[in-house]
């Protein structure tokens, strides 16, 4: 475990370690891993001249003094305090990149496989090989490095994740099986060491299966770590996935999450994303439809206070006709913080009768903050209903006056109005306990930002 300090030294150390673990096994995962190791050698660092990295600086990330670890088995005892016990759920914790099953496996209905990726790779080899990594075919990853003269993106973080075999959660729901209880997974960074923590998760719903998944990312204590996660979601024909995501790591941490999703015909996906934590966070979501009449709804909030950078990239690709996608986000930004929202919808020529809408509305609570909103719609079909729009605004002084004239302090008025602004998205959360948790978190974050003056009296 090497500790380094300057000029992407942890990355150099990481690559040096990989060279020793190149291996020669012919298993699916080792092949994937070796592809990633090779790609990583020549992959440039993300840089602001790349379209996908224009507004999101990463220099400081590569200067972090990170420990290169993939899993730390020490001190993993359960972490039951990290869960929302208001929700009756099957529970999993992924502590420092190492997955642990909490609770009673016998609770699980028949047809549900619920295990760690490490175990899954031993016991469900064929199933995993069929799915994992297949999303890359949709991305066309293999050749982009050489083919494109102008670099639009850097896949460094993706290769970083794939070049080792990180642990994570593996969930498989067999055909026709519908889980009544949600599955709750907490990704926790424990201990105070600044680590590189990587996880890889795979969720597969076979035909007509149904699952509610709660995913939370948090810190036990401040550590200055970088978490680099990759999840793949496969939603089979007529299957339904409800996904609740909450990123609430502390502001010393760095966080990247990539969630790739493939939806078959007549499938449904509902995702709700609370992106609130870390000093630097980036959520990349790629969605693909492989059959007709699939439906997806992705909503959420972005919160950036006290110097945070909060970045979301959405790419929804409509290649099949008659699919419907909704993507709607709201953001609150204050005090030297930045929100980046890059939302893309592509409708290819054959994807007639597509319905796709995207919106992103932001509220700037102080003037010394930044929002970079970039909605894009690329349509090649001629019979579609699509729209996109963004807004960036401030609180209305008339609204503040109204509340103050009723005896409410200016700070409280600003807080009520700010929560009001995002609560129009929060109201859409169907799971009561999760909605309440989200509101409580929001209240806490806004309270905390008072200290720094985001809600201070301006005069």
């Amino acid at each position, binding site marked *: 475990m090497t500790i380094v300090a300057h000029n992407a030294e942890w990355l150099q150390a990481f690559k040096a370690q990989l060279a020793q673990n190149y291996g020669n096994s012919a298993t699916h995962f080792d092949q994937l891993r070796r592809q990633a190791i090779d790609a990583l050698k020549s992959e440039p660092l993300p840089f602001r001249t790349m379209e996908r990295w224009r507004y999101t600086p990463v220099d400081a990330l590569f200067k972090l003094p990170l420990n290169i670890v993939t899993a730390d088995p020490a001190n993993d005892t359960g972490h039951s305090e990290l869960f929302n016990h208001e929700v009756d759920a099957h529970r999993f914790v992924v502590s420092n990149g190492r997955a642990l099953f909490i609770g009673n496996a016998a609770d699980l209905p028949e047809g549900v496989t619920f295990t760690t990726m490490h175990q899954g790779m031993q016991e469900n080899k064929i199933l995993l090989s069929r799915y994992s990594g297949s999303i890359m075919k949709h991305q066309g990853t293999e050749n982009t490095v050489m083919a494109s003269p102008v670099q639009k993106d850097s896949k460094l973080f993706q290769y970083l994740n794939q070049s080792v075999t990180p642990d994570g959660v593996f969930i498989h729901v067999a055909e026709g099986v519908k889980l009544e209880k949600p599955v709750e997974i907490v990704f926790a960074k424990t201990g105070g060491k600044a680590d590189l923590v990587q996880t890889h998760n795979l969720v597969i719903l076979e035909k007509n299966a149904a699952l509610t998944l709660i995913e939370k990312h948090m810190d036990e204590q401040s550590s200055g770590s970088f978490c680099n996660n990759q999840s793949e979601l496969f939603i089979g024909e007529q299957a339904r996935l409800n996904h609740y995501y909450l990123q609430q790591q502390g502001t010393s941490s760095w966080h990247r999450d990539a969630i790739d999703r493939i939806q078959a015909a007549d499938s449904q996906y509902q995702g709700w994303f609370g992106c609130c934590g870390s000093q630097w966070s980036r959520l990349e979501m790629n969605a693909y439809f492989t059959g007709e009449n699939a439906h997806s709804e992705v909503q959420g909030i972005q919160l950036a206070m006290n110097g945070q950078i909060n970045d979301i990239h959405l790419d929804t690709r409509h290649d099949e006709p008659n699919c419907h996608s909704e993507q709607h986000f709201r953001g609150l930004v204050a005090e030297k913080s930045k929100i980046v929202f890059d939302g893309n919808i592509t409708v290819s020529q054959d994807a007639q009768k597509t319905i796709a809408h995207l919106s992103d509305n932001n509220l700037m609570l102080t003037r010394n903050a930044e929002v970079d909103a970039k909605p894009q719609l690329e349509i090649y079909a001629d019979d579609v209903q699509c729209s996109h729009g963004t807004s960036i605004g401030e609180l209305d002084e008339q609204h503040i006056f*109204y509340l*103050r*004239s009723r*005896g*409410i*302090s*200016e700070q409280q008025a600003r807080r009520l109005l700010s929560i*009001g*602004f995002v609560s129009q998205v929060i109201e859409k959360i169907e799971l009561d306990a999760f909605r309440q948790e989200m509101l409580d978190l929001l209240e806490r974050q806004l309270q905390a930002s008072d200290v720094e003056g985001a809600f201070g009296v301006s005069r």
Partner: protein
Amino acid sequence: MLTINDLKVSVENKDILKGLSLQVNAGEVHAIMGPNGSGKSTLSHVLAGKDGYQVTSGSVTYKGTDLLELETEERAHQGIFLAMQYPVELPGVNNMVFLRESYNAIRKSRGEDELDSPSFLRLIREKADQVKLPSKLLKRSVNSGFSGGEKKRNEILQMALLEPSLAILDETDSGLDIDALRIVADGVNQLRSEDRAMIVVTHYQRLLDYIKPDVVHVLADGQIIKTGDFSLVRELEDKGYGWLLDGEAA
């Protein structure tokens, strides 16, 4: 209770109030009438502490303190309430949450304990019944998608809830049908008491027929040019404002 002395107020360097004086005692209901642009809304806003108005001279004393020195919310804590001419819509801010925050903020400022949720719920339902505001509007965002009449009733509900010692109604009657007008008038009449005063700013006599104010003032061009009793309302209805304005010019 309220003493306004030679108040001069300008907005963006334009003089609006030009030496207004007014004395309102506890237990009294005053009506302020006047043509458009006479400064009625400016007076209401200055009393409530809205930004954007420059007080260039004069004084406003409320219960012995200099009102102009107080922040907007402090005035509310001291018992001043302004029913707005154009109540704003607050999307995402739940009406019930807003009403409770307001009610408890004022209680806290008086050193009283906050009212717990069940007790508040009982109280607000009772008050909503009084002003005939459908209880489903309590669950919606403040004024969002409310009709004009519902917005005004929501104002009267707040007045009934907060029980101010000085209530100012800024053209609360504008745009109301006869039923809504009665509800507003009932709200005012129910609140009438020995230790409370009210200023009803209006354009028309309709509302005043129900309220029967003790004192009636005519505001024109930033000054009070005539003060009388309720019979002045009838006189204005018959003759309009012209005779007063001509008199002033002559």
